[in-house]
């Protein structure tokens, strides 16, 4: 599974963008979006998903159940 950003909650602060080890995050119309094809849930990089850890709004970067679990 990949992570996704709940657009209605995102403040557009950009804090997550540089933290992603896979450059999966980019800006789109003032809020940020995750490219599910690039997101590895930070597995093999960090103990916790970086976008979740840095985001100032709780429950904004969440698991997207539409995608299968990422396997390294």
């Amino acid at each position, binding site marked *: 599974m990949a992570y996704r950003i709940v657009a209605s909650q995102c*403040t*557009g*602060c*950009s*804090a997550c*963008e*540089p*933290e992603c080890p896979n450059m999966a995050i980019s800006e789109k119309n003032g809020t940020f979006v995750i490219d599910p094809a690039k997101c590895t849930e930070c597995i093999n990089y*960090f*103990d*916790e998903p*970086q976008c*979740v*850890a*840095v985001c*100032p*709004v709780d429950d904004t970067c969440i698991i997207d159940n539409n995608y299968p679990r990422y396997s390294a």
Partner: protein
Amino acid sequence: MASPIISLSSIAAPGRAKLDELLQQVAEHKGCGTSSGSGKASCGTGAGQGDLSPEVWEKVKNHPCYSEEAHHHYARMHVAVAPACNIQCNYCNRKYDCANESRPGVVSEKLTPEQAAKKVLAVASTIPQMTVLGIAGPGDPLANPEKTFKTFELISKTAPDIKLCLSTNGLMLPDHVDTIESFNVDHVTITINMVDPDVGAQIYPWIFYKNKRYKGREAAQILSERQLQGLEMLTERGILCKVNSVMIPGINDEHLVEVNRAVKSRGAFLHNIMPLISAPEHGTVFGLNGQRGPSAQELKALQDSCEGEMNMMRHCRQCRADAVGLLGEDRSAEFTTENVMAMEVEYDLESRQAYQAVVEQERQAKAAAKQAELETMAGEHSDVKILVAVATKGSGRINEHFGHATEFQIYEASTAGAKFVGHRRVDLYCQGGYGEEEALESTIIRAINDCAAVFVAKIGGCPKESLKAAGIDAVDRYAFEYIEQSVIAYYRDYLEQVRGGAIVHGTRGDAEIRQGAFVAA
């Protein structure tokens, strides 16, 4: 004493109608000199050189944020290029700007470094007093290091005379000290609300550091260590450091005396204690859980108890991060991104310097006036102290109509002279407009309730009566005079009347601090 008349037309470049027009407005605003110059402050606050070393004073004296005297004459601007933050503060709602550093409940316009640089140059070539550029948010400048330093790089190339400063929460500060030094940034503000992790845990729910989210006491401990380390590293390199603290009653109010000692011993030159701004509609943790901000007297008492320790900054208006203009005045509407990008900017260093030389003369003149008045008090000693509220548009004069004032400057008068102790804003209360005179009057009275008098350029009969009923003397006989000189003169009369029995001097009540950042134009 006679006031020197300043001819601004002589320094405005010919053929630039827009600039002339703006200088004209500036001229109306200014008039004359101001207090202290390099003279020793009578009170030991930030009003003059005080106990600062000559090198520090040289850096501080023209900084509108750090020198309460300079903020009448020089202007600063902030550009919002740094939206991301790496910690969470309970007084901040990240949907908006950093509530206590800048302005609560309002969002600044985000700029790219290129847009920001163009805006700075446009403003600096229109407003010659613009001498300081700050990057303070809406997030943390050092959580956005590329954007912050790119902006500095672009500006220092074209406008080397503009001082650069930045405000940070300090978490990433130790990593960027070398870059800060290489850009000649000589003013850094660090927001330090605690040096005890147990206190910190009540202010900061989490931080993001080295790819991990830390919570509670551990988070506060890391933050505090990084802040103090960064402060030490900067002061070792001779970079000026100011510390901001947000006073949160019941959480860090008493603790801030300890913070004051800790930052002073590490070389901070100024400590600015600001009241917590907290209202439910800001959606912050403190706003929602009913955490109150301090009253005016509580704030003053804490500032007084820290004052023996070091210079305190009492004129901070917690103004908007993207404000343009002299403190208390905001001209950002003229410089929207759209306007700026359409402007043709020609940076004229020479005319800026000429203008600034004139301002220096004004400042000397006012210092002399204050000194002369103070000498009439020599040898007087009394325990009587009063607070006086002053309506001013800047330049150190009583030059604002009571009904137009968006804020009042508060001076404490005693036999030691006149000392600036803070300001009270009434701008957000004025929303009813002039139709609701009574409501307006009562809010102003609440804001300056601890003052014995209010000095204005002009006031109507009705408000004068209401003020009188509240025990506040509305004084217009010093209209357009220098503030400090007038405060001392008033105090001398007051003291005489107390001694003659005509006035019974008593303590006055507390006053309210408005909730909201400075947004009046």
